[in-house]
């Protein structure tokens, strides 16, 4: 009667079920977690992890990872002053066309090779060859003269006062390692998932969702309480970041939604750190082609957005309404009025323009919740003045690609932009010089501004440069090149028992992974 038995659990099946139950139960009880979770710090942020190639450090995610795995020649400290890292001495020649440098002699790459001047030369030459990503920052780079292992001179083809500051975003590659893995694309394919750096962490593994590192004990800059291991997790959903934080699966949540941060602040185990970086929310116009090429329209649209409402409801008041094209933490800013909503004035200004049947279009990145909300808010604000705004999603790499051609630049783009490093010059030159194709987000072309910026680039004296920058900003404001909305303080939420308070990185939009420290044991 075998078929009758089929209704009962066969012994094998029973055993399997029992095993499964035991396994699940042990999992439930927590099991034996990784022994070093206590000395591992897990950081979570939103956004696609595309590549580890430090050439692409213009993407926030790549920059964050590069900050752990690579070193730069110089960097900015908390007071926003330029200090040396790999370079112990550096000096800009009076004609602003060359930089002499002395390097540290005690730096080794993760594979044991010593870092020497030829690696600097290789990194810069490769950037010049490929001309993508952060290569736009080292404009004017000509060549590097390697004097010996620790001495070199960088030669520029034209005066470029921003070069030294730009070096804070140039991560130095292990030339021998990259050369051995060139492939057909100058190492880009290999560097997408591999580590050629000398930084405080070594890359362990990378997937599309997370990157893990372990501490490089041969690092030249030994500090206390650097975690043994780091994990960077990509979690796009703000609510998931929050829940994983509450569950203890992450130690630091970056760019948390302001509402979530406010709610988490009341949790005794967590703390909120408002990172003051140079991130500014803006709507960038296409100033060359289309209806937004008209300055009067741009000036009118500047009066439409609900600045206070947006700051209060979407950003939880974690920021300051903008007063000019530069984010508030930067210096050399002139006195410009704070952005304000004025519907009546907007309507009056728009009435003079023939705008019947014109639909305006704005691009935004849907991956970022707050920006999506701001785009929707602006769309609604536009209806208040009788204008139709169409919203279209775009991914950041595609947006960058569209900047190459004024015809392709979006009519309007909502963006959280930030200064690559805290020098007003880089924002102004890269953003508004007509030659800065690829980084000039608005297609702006004004010979007066060009002349001023060129003068600043050739000017060795900082205070004189400052004056020029102020003049430029006033012109930009008059021309309403973009709608400056607010400078943000982005909440980072963390466990103070586990880690020290995260600090804003002067050369990025959030933190530098190299700065993560475990909390002191009490």
């Amino acid at each position, binding site marked *: 009667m075998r078929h009758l038995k089929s209704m009962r659990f066969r012994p094998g099946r029973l055993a399997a079920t029992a095993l499964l139950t035991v396994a699940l139960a*042990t999992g439930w009880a927590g099991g034996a977690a990784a022994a070093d979770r206590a000395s591992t710090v897990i950081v979570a942020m939103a956004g696609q992890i595309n590549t580890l190639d430090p050439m692409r450090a213009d993407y926030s995610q790549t920059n964050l990872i590069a900050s752990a795995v690579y070193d730069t020649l110089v960097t900015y400290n908390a007071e926003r002053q330029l200090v040396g890292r790999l370079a112990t001495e550096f000096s800009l020649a009076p004609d602003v066309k060359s930089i002499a440098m002395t390097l540290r002699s005690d730096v080794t790459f993760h594979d044991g090779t010593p870092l020497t001047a030829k690696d600097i030369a290789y990194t810069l030459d490769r950037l010049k060859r490929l001309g993508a990503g952060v290569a736009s920052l080292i404009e004017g780079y000509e060549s590097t003269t390697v004097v010996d292992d620790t001495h070199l001179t960088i030669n520029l083809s034209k005066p470029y006062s921003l070069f030294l500051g730009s070096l804070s975003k140039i991560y130095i590659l292990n030339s021998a390692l990259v050369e051995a893995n060139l492939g057909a694309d100058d190492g880009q394919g290999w560097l997408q998932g591999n580590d050629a750096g000398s930084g405080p962490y070594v890359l362990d593994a990378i997937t599309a969702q997370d990157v893990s590192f372990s501490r490089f004990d041969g690092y030249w800059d030994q500090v206390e309480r650097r975690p043994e291991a780091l994990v960077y997790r990509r979690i796009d*959903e703000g609510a998931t970041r929050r*829940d994983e934080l509450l569950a203890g699966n992450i130690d630091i949540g970056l760019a948390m939604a302001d509402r979530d941060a406010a709610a988490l602040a009341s949790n005794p185990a967590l703390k909120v750190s408002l990172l003051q970086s140079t991130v500014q929310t803006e709507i960038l116009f296409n100033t060359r082609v289309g209806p937004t090429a008209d300055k009067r329209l741009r000036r009118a649209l500047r009066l439409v957005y609900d600045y206070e409402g947006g700051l209060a409801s979407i950003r939880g008041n974690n920021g300051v309404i903008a007063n000019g094209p530069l984010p508030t933490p930067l210096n050399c800013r002139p006195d410009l009025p704070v952005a304000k909503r004025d519907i009546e004035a907007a309507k009056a200004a728009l009435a003079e323009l023939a705008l019947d049947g014109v639909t305006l279009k704005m691009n935004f990145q849907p991956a970022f919740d707050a920006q999506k909300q701001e785009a929707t808010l602006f769309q609604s604000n536009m209806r208040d003045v009788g204008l139709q705004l169409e919203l279209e999603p775009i991914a950041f790499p595609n947006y960058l690609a569209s900047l190459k051609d004024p015809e392709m630049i979006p009519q309007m783009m909502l963006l959280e932009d930030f200064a690559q490093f805290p020098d007003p010059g880089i924002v102004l030159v890269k953003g508004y010089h007509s030659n800065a194709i690829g980084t000039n987000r608005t297609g702006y072309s004004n010979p007066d501004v060009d002349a001023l910026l060129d003068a600043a680039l050739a000017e060795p004296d900082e205070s004189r440069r400052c004056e020029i920058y102020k003049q430029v900003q006033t012109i930009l404001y008059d021309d309403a090149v973009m709608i400056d909305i607010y400078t943000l303080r982005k909440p980072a939420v963390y466990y103070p028992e586990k880690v020290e308070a995260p600090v804003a990185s002067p050369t990025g939009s959030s933190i530098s992974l190299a700065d993560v420290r475990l909390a002191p044991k009490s």
Partner: protein
Amino acid sequence: MAVRSILRFLLMRLGQTILTLWGLASLVFLMIKLLPGDEAQMAVGAEASPEQIEAARQRLGLDAPVIIQYLLFLSRLVKGDLGVSISTFQPVLNDLVAVFPSTLELVSFAMLVNLAVAVPSAIVAANKRGGAFDGSSRFMAVIFGGLPVFWLALMLQYLLGTVWRLLPISGHNAYGMGAPILTGAATLDALLALDWVALADALRHIALPAVALAALFSTQIFRAFRASLLGVLTSDFMMAVRAKGATARRVLLRHAVPNSVTATLALAGTQFGAMVGSSVLIESVFARKGVGAYMFNAVAQKDSFAVLGSVIFIGAVVCIANLIVDLLQLVVDPRVRAAQLGN
């Protein structure tokens, strides 16, 4: 069973599958041609140098007549060259093969849950038709059959994950619990490494996604299987069986169930494709990797070759799955055997 007729059937089905795959490839080729923009530019990305674009033009044979391009395209496909992703800089096939096991794992567990819930429920419901269980399970089937997959996923994630902390809310495994990545499917990797703790952890992470994905399909199987069982149970043939004196249980299991399996198997087979399609929703809610998530990222970044490569890959997978289901039906059901092989 004549071996020749089996062979003939197999060849015919295989031929059909290949024909469908060829049709799929041709469709994708058409789509590539119809996409706006320069194809060589699409292949290497917007940041590429003119030399790289020219190299791509040569490699893809874009200066040749369309028919040559088409043949080149097909020959590349056969070699497994789906193009290179412009966001990961890796060959698309490599990217897909890396993430596909994760989706397969999700769909497999979902199918398991699906059948494990639907089949016994249908048997019990059909057995005691009109009873309390029958009524309540049919009611549940109606409700769950209308819940959107992603909404159910969000609700489960919130209730069971965030509020009651019973199960994890995202990812494949907790930190440090992951077994070395061999296949890409967390449960399989743990199994291969004989790491039971990792296995338990991976199972806990896949529980909610699998249940959320399975729910809707489970109601379909339940209704179909139950209807089929009832059809058999009320047929004249069954009267004869009962007249012979068989017990109710025997009637059910020995006769009703086997007769209903084929149709249900066919339904489950078609559900496979739908599950792969819906995986993108689950992978989004639970932050899991997989072909759905990969394709979604590719769409967001306008990575055309990654998108089209995904379409071909997924289409091929579903095609092959359909073939397997057809063959399974052949093995399982003598009526199908007779029908397909008899002529």
